């Protein structure tokens, strides 16, 4: 890359020397009318500018893609698709503009472009074409083979029902085909993608708004007739079998929930106790929850494409639970413990899952007769029960119910047995949601593989193994349960309402009353989480473990005790919150390397990057530097840029302006400078032979002029006798450099200008400089190119002087190149202010380095002139107004 740039610079420098061919061209070119010249210039220059714009845009996007390839920041398919589109359009435009600069010369590039584009397409195309299969499937016909059709949640439920005879709810599932049918009928995916793209995704408030919009869009869409009939047919069949009016639990079941390392905990909505007449509405709400904030954030962080998370919906006959809960067949904080952990509450399991109460907890031996090793009866202040008609009611529990165990020891043992039977069937630890119905029967509501693996890798606090309170540190809060292990510090941020969540700062300690799943989207930003209520089994705890955010739940009164904004340290293992930043060494497993790597989204980016980013065309002089050899978009970009510069700077040698159209600059008296207005460089049309500074509108020319005139030239520096000799010798041996030899351009200095463009060909005695600048408010297309060459002294001194100039300019951000006695400098893409400042510096240099080569043999005087010039440059940069010398 670097050498490519360098070569480009050299090549470009070579071209610049022929630019406009004023003083250097050998072949006379026929003169054109000013009007023709202007039109040709404007047209070409317009294409050249647009090409540079497109070129910069393409390179910017490529850089962005390169950064994302590190895989440390989350991105979605929207990123991959939009960047591909940006690069493709930019590259296509580059080709178009190059072909406008040189008609018909590079049309082969279109074929290369097409060929590369064709290879990119499969990575970014949006899959369509529907899966064929039934729209709905009764639970009796579902088992683990049906995963691709009904999602793992329903497939597991069907599996344990059919093959283990375990009690599960009656019902049916709307399959992936059913949901796809609903989306297709309404063209929903296209509209959703469009809206996702239209919102920058890293701001939480935007994301909340977007999520709400998309969900409303889905809920407002009608269910197609065939799906409606299929669902109603299932409901009817169940009614005939079970009798009475049915109420359903309508739950999400995603095809992605089996993906390793991903829990999807609490992302999707479940609608409980839905009346049969509202089942379709609930279906849409559950489907819409795929675009809930938690779910969208989760996909983004895990590199999942929307299509990777196909949704199905289970419609299960509601189990009116007396007690219910969640159990793990292993300890979520230490998988090596030989125990099961059962969480239980009164009523529906909703309050365990959403972390709103502290449940009863039994830690039970995995061995018969499954004795309870630990038994904690929680403060179950509320319970959720079914309304007889529809909906779920939140009830305050009565005093003795609140502290009464929600399961008997016998029920605990039965539950443990059932759970281990399921575990044995699957051959792996399970995470099971269960319910005890009115008749005392245990019903399994959900079972899925228990993701304890990552938790097991972590250091786990072992009771009695207290690290102790570090010396001199104040303990602000103590107690609670470790929901996710670890230690972290940050400023306290209390979230009471959703509105607070919108402004959650990166790296803060999240403090909440309840460990609600609603706060999950904040975990990507939080240093640690502290809650007054909540359980280890809740969704938030799951997500905290997955994101490796230390979490301490059940610290009552902590919201009062932690002052917002104050830095605290949360030691989740020890159950303490300390004041200030406390260094506690914890042996943590390595952070997950590059979170995006290996995900479907990452693979898509990697695939397209191979076709976009690599640069194979390095050497413009090589015969391989040709359209045929362009294998990536970067190659095409590089090739076109090179050729565009060639074509553009050929303008000068191909065109000659009519001398009489040049206006002489008059600054009190006529100056040795002539100005050609290429477009809008004059404030008005000028009739006479002279133009004054106030009539000139050219931003770059005026900046340059300021630099040239701010400090009067003192004349050549006093020279040593050797220096003087070398001038004489060179002058006699090279008559072409003799200023006394007549040439129409020999003594004239030409500015060609437009409002934002300026080209200066100047020759002072033996010194040539060529400057070209484009400066306007569009930063990306700004550039200055400058060449400084010649001198009357011997070659060594001239080379030294070129180096001197290059070094000076490098300190002002120019990219410089010295070849022989010529210095080439280039500056691109800086703001107008910077460009104007740098032009002043160049203006100063053009005048004041004129005969420096004469003192170049003497190190002491070089040093002297350098510091003198740097000093003067500072004066020039501060000078105000445009003046005559």
């Amino acid at each position, binding site marked *: 890359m670097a050498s490519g740039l360098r070569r480009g610079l050299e090549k470009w420098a070579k071209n610049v020397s022929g630019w406009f061919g004023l003083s250097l061209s050998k072949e006379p070119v026929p003169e054109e009318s000013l*009007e*023709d010249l202007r*039109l040709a210039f*404007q*047209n070409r220059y*317009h294409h050249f*500018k*647009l090409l540079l*714009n497109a070129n910069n845009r393409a390179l910017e996007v490529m850089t962005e893609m390169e950064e994302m390839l590190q895989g440390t920041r989350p991105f979605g398919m*929207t990123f991959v*698709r*939009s960047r*591909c*589109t*940006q690069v*493709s*359009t930019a590259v*296509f*435009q580059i080709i*178009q503009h190059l072909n406008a600069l040189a008609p018909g010369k590079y049309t082969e590039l279109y074929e290369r472009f097409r060929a590369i*584009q064709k290879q*990119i*397409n499969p990575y*970014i195309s949006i899959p369509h074409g529907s899966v064929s299969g039934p729209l709905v499937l009764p639970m009796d016909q579902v088992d683990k083979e049906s995963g691709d059709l009904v999602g793992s949640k329903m497939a597991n439920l069907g599996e344990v029902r059919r093959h283990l005879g375990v009690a599960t709810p009656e019902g049916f599932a709307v399959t992936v085909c059913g949901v796809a049918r609903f989306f297709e009928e309404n063209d929903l995916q*296209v509209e959703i*993608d*469009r*809206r996702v*793209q*239209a*919102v*920058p995704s890293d701001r939480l408030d935007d994301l909340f708004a977007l999520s709400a919009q998309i969900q409303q869009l889905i809920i407002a869409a009608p269910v197609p007739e065939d799906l409606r009939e299929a669902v109603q047919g299932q409901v009817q069949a169940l009614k005939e079998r079970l009798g009475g009016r049915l109420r359903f639990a309508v739950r999400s079941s995603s095809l992605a929930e089996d993906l390793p390392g991903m829990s999807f905990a609490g992302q999707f909505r479940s609608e409980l106790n839905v009346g049969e007449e509202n089942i379709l509405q609930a279906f849409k709400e559950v489907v819409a929850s795929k675009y809930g904030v938690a779910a969208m954030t989760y996909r983004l962080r895990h590199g999942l494409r929307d299509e990777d998370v196909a949704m199905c919906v289970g419609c299960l006959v509601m189990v009116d639970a007396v007690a219910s809960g969640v159990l793990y067949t292993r300890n979520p904080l230490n998988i090596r413990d030989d125990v099961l952990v059962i969480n239980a509450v009164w009523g529906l399991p909703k309050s365990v899952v959403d972390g709103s109460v502290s449940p009863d907890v039994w830690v039970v031996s995995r061995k018969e007769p499954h004795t309870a090793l630990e038994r904690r009866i929680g403060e179950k202040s509320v319970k959720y029960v079914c309304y007889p008609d529809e909906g779920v009611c939140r009830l305050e529990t009565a005093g003795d119910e609140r502290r009464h165990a929600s399961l008997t020891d016998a029920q605990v043992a039965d539950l443990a047995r059932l759970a281990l039977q399921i575990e044995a069937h699957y051959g792996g630890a399970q995470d099971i949601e269960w319910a005890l119905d009115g008749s005392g029967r245990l019903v399994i509501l959900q079972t899925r593989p228990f993701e304890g693996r990552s938790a097991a890798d972590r250091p786990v606090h072992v009771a009695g193994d207290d690290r102790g309170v570090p010396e001199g540190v104040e303990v602000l809060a103590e107690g609670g349960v470790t929901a996710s292990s670890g230690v972290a510090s940050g400023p306290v941020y209390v979230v009471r309402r959703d509105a607070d969540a919108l402004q959650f700062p990166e790296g803060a300690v999240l403090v909440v009353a309840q460990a609600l799943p609603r706060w999950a989207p904040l975990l990507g930003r939080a240093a640690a989480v502290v809650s007054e209520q909540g359980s280890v089994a809740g969704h938030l705890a799951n997500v905290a473990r997955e994101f490796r955010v230390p979490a301490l739940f059940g610290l009552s009164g902590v919201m009062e005790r932690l002052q917002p904004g104050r830095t605290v340290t949360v030691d989740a293992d020890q159950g303490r919150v300390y004041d200030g930043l406390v260094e506690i060494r914890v042996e943590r497993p390595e952070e997950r390397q590059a979170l995006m790597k290996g995900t479907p989204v990452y693979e898509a980016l990697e695939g397209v990057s191979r076709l976009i980013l690599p640069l194979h065309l390095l050497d413009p002089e090589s015969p391989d530097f040709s359209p045929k050899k362009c294998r990536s978009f970067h190659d095409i970009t590089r090739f076109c840029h090179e050729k565009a510069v060639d074509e553009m700077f050929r303008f000068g040698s191909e065109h000659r302006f009519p001398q009489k159209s040049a206006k002489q600059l008059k600054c009190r008296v006529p100056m040795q400078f002539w100005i050609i207005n290429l477009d*809008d460089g004059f404030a008005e049309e000028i009739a006479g032979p002279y133009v004054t500074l106030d009539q000139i509108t050219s931003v770059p020319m005026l900046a340059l002029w300021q630099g040239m005139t701010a400090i009067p030239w003192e004349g050549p520096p006093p020279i040593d006798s050797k220096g003087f000799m070398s001038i004489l010798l060179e002058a006699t041996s090279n008559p072409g450099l003799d200023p006394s030899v007549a040439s129409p351009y020999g003594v004239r200095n030409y500015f060609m200008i437009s409002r934002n463009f300026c080209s200066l060909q100047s020759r002072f005695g033996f010194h040539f400089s060529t400057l070209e600048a484009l400066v306007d408010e*569009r930063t990306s297309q700004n550039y200055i190119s400058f060449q400084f060459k010649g001198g009357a002294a011997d070659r060594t001194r001239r080379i030294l002087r070129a180096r001197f100039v290059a070094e000076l300019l490098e300190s002002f951000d120019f990219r410089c190149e010295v070849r022989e006695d010529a210095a080439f400098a280039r500056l691109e893409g800086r703001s107008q202010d910077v460009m104007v400042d740098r032009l002043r510096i160049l203006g100063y240099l053009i005048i004041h380095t004129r005969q420096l080569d004469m003192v170049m043999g003497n190190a002491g005087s070089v040093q002297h002139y350098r510091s003198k010039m740097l000093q003067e440059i500072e004066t020039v940069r501060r000078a105000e107004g445009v003046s005559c010398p």
Partner: protein
Amino acid sequence: METIRVLLVDDEVEFLDTLLKRMRKRQVEAAGVYSAEDALRYLESSPVDVVVLDVKMPGMDGIDALKAIKERHPLVEVIMLTGHANVEVAIQGMELGAFDYLMKPMDIDELLYKVQDACKKKRLHEKRIQKRKGVEAEEENGTA
């Protein structure tokens, strides 16, 4: 540069109205219509330099509208605007003569620059045509 006459075409009423307001604040003579059909009608009666055209609209879509505009008013420059990142549509649009392709949400200044560039292209194109006509007229005079 003299005033640029822009026609914005988008079925999203709110988006279009905001854009119109912001363009006018930036001294652009902007008009807006909510469909491709209305855009074609508008072009019959009012001179326009640049059309900013949403790709996806109910009724006639942006690509068909682009074809129709380029056929009936070849000098008018068209910038395609879209909510989808769709490479195929983008390239197709440009092959059909669209000046550029922008994805929503775009920076208003970025759009403005593109509008200026597109207009500049149109002006240069017009100048060249005028010039050619001038040359032809001279030749005719010469032979007559």
